[in-house]
């Protein structure tokens, strides 16, 4: 197990370099950011030249990349164009996103698995069809539509929740955004759980447990659920990284200044320190989450052994 972990950690390095380099190149492909700093006016050539010098924009791409990555290892993630260091942007953005992701994650786990279990056990009945149709609807409606509709209905019209999240957001202000963010993943978790529960409810060991006279709840929780959850755990693990980096639409609608929002600002202003800085941290989180899921997988299923 130890050697496996080390091998995976080593493999993270090329992925890290590959992703950050790719993002760096992509932000640069967007073009020169200096002209936009002058707003709607033509840039003053002297100032523009000085700014390009200051941000090393005249250096060849590989040198800019190395300079930036070198800076990261000393904790300097660069500065956004308004003078704000990227680390302080991260300091406010990550806690907000982590809170939102936590709410969404809990929702998707609890409600998704619950729905999946119920519909998996009652396969073919009306509950199952209902859950199926609901999940399909949720998958087919784009997030921004769900977001706007819920914000208007629950936030403005009926006043059930606050329409937007404050700064910093409190947990009850994150429930509605959490629902919106979790909705598609919730549907996936429900369907996945349903499939595996339905498969496994025919397994021999389940029949044995029932024949032994165990109460239904125990059969479900101790035997069925434990075995069925492996693919679900896999999915949840990868979803964590996706939730954190992909909450852009939700954050925009509910005024949560998290990672997605900062990424959007960075991209819109073509500020590569912000974009590469945030993506770097996201990549690390994503890789670590993957690794943990893989290790967890070995824990959950004793037949899996890592050389």
């Amino acid at each position, binding site marked *: 197990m130890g050697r496996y972990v080390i091998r995976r950690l080593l493999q993270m390095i090329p992925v890290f370099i590959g992703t950050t380099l790719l993002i760096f190149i992509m932000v640069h492909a967007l073009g020169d950011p200096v002209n936009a700093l002058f707003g709607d006016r033509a840039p003053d050539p002297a100032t523009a030249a000085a700014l390009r010098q200051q941000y090393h924009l005249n250096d060849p791409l590989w040198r800019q990349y190395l300079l930036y990555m070198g800076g990261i290892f000393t904790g300097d993630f660069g500065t956004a164009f308004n003078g704000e260091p990227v680390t302080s942007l991260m300091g406010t953005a990550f806690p907000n996103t982590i809170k939102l992701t936590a709410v969404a994650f809990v929702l998707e786990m609890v409600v998704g698995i619950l729905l999946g279990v119920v519909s998996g056990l009652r396969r073919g009945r009306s509950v199952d069809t209902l859950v199926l149709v609901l999940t399909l609807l949720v998958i087919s409606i784009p997030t921004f539509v769900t977001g706007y509709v819920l914000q208007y209905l629950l936030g403005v019209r009926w006043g059930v929740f606050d329409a937007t999240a404050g700064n910093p957001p409190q947990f009850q202000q994150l429930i509605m955004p959490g629902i919106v963010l979790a909705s598609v993943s919730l549907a996936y978790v429900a369907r996945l759980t349903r499939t595996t529960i339905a498969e496994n409810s025919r397994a021999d060991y389940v029949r044995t447990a029932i024949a032994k006279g*165990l109460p239904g709840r125990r059969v479900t929780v101790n035997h069925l659920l434990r075995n069925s959850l492996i693919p679900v755990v896999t999915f949840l693990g990868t979803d964590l990284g996706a939730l954190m980096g992909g909450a852009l639409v939700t954050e925009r609608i509910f005024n949560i200044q998290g990672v997605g929002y900062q990424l959007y600002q960075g991209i819109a202003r073509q500020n590569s320190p912000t974009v590469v800085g945030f993506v770097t941290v996201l990549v690390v989180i994503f890789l670590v989450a993957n690794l943990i899921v893989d290790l967890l997988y070995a824990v959950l299923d004793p037949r899996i052994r890592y050389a």
Partner: protein
Amino acid sequence: MRGARRSSRRTGISGLGRTVTVVAGTAALALAATACSGGGGGGGSNSGNGVVTAWWGDPQNPLIPTDTNEVNGGAVLDMIFTGLKVYDPKTAQPVNAMAESITTQDQQHFTIKIKPNWKFSDGTPVTAHSFVDAWNWGSFAGNKQNNTDPFFTPIQGYTDVHPESGAPKARTMSGLHVVDDHTFTVALTHKFSTWPDTLGYSAFAPLPKAFFANPNKWEQKPIGNGPYVIDSWTKGQQMKLSPNPDYIGDQKPKNKGILLKVYTDANASYADLQSGNLDVDNNLPSSALATAKNDLHGRFINAPAGILQTIGFPLYDKAWNTPAAAKVREGIGMAIDRATITNKIFHNTRVPASDWTAPILGAQGGYKPGLCGGACTYNPTEAKKLIDGNGGIPGGQLTIAYNADADHKVWVDAVCNSINNVLGNSHACVGKPVGTFADFRNQIVAKSMTGAFRSGWQMDYPLIQDFIQPIYETGAASNDYSYSSHQVDSLINQANAAPSRAETVTKYQQAESQIDKDLPTIPLWYQNGLAGYSANVSNVLLDPFSVPVYWEIEKH
């Protein structure tokens, strides 16, 4: 297998159903409880302590007067600084603020006397040096300030401190000279009679000694001499301002402070406005325009501002720079049904334009509706004749470029549909979204546009000069069209040298008539200032720059 299935259903998995119901019910109750206690709709963050919550956008550049070129930073600078002049919110006329008097004998050399006893909020006095040092610091190229052109360019010595290329030859401008603590003189490079009226712009603000000692530290929490001081500033999120106790000017705040909140999206701030969590919102989304008056029970302002929207043409492209193409442009202008667009798309928050200035100037200031002739009048048959009879649209298809990260798609599509309907060809005109504002500006600055592009102008100060010279003079800073006309250039110089306001206006209007013949841009509409406000506040008005007059707002 069938047997097994039946038995498994019977024996006890149904018990699960009960558990599920209980769990789900509890969860729902818990959720409802937190929701209710969370103050849904009421808004704990907007309690009545006299502080007005207002919408804000995140300034892109540091909050230094000579580095701020957009309206969000400008709004704060207007709150924390009082410059030599201010623009009356109701009449847009420049009025002396810190200036005691500004005199000149020859429209080129000015003597400025400032009022005594003014202090910055850190207690230090405001002197002539506060102005002169600030202007020198901002103009010095080594400080990389991006908003000095065209404000400081008329001053003698500017090209020495801020050459186009190469190292600066001096740190101070030769045209600025301090006489005593309350007097200084300014020498311009050319006659410019209305120059004193430009001094209300935020770039001309004075700066305290604390700034020069350490600009970065000052910028964390700027110190000024205006009606408000900054209590706290969380960059990118919010800024809290409270009244300046040492302020001795005329704009005394009628509230206990302002809390500026940065929002990620215009719809989010509008949702907060409707639910009472936000007091003043001057960034209404286009989706709210139709219903704002009803949603807010009349608490909606739709007032003229100094903003003109146009479509620009790349005259550096040979195909567009012919006399025939000028006629085609006139035809394009004629094919745009401005009245219907401003009514249906903008719900009358825009007014069809018929000159190159804005109504806020008033007739005395140079606003002259109808100055723009055919190109601003909707005339489908004539339009088709002009376009078809002069070689059609260069390149075969008109593209109107715009930056996709702002709210332009709707009106660009409407303009194109109007042109398509007139020409009877659904592919005659098409919108061309560019991914980011930065990319859009890059293409414009690099002069690589091949078709028309969205263009516009928000005035820096309410003078007709500001609508013409910075845009249409040869080589001007905002001349994105490579437009060059000897007549216009010489008329501009004559206007600036004219001794009286009326003569300046006349000359500039003559320049406009020439622009009407050449049509580097086609005026579309004047954009109004819009704001909505909550039931907690009153006396909300917008200044001519469509920024709320924060110090006048009263909160219950």
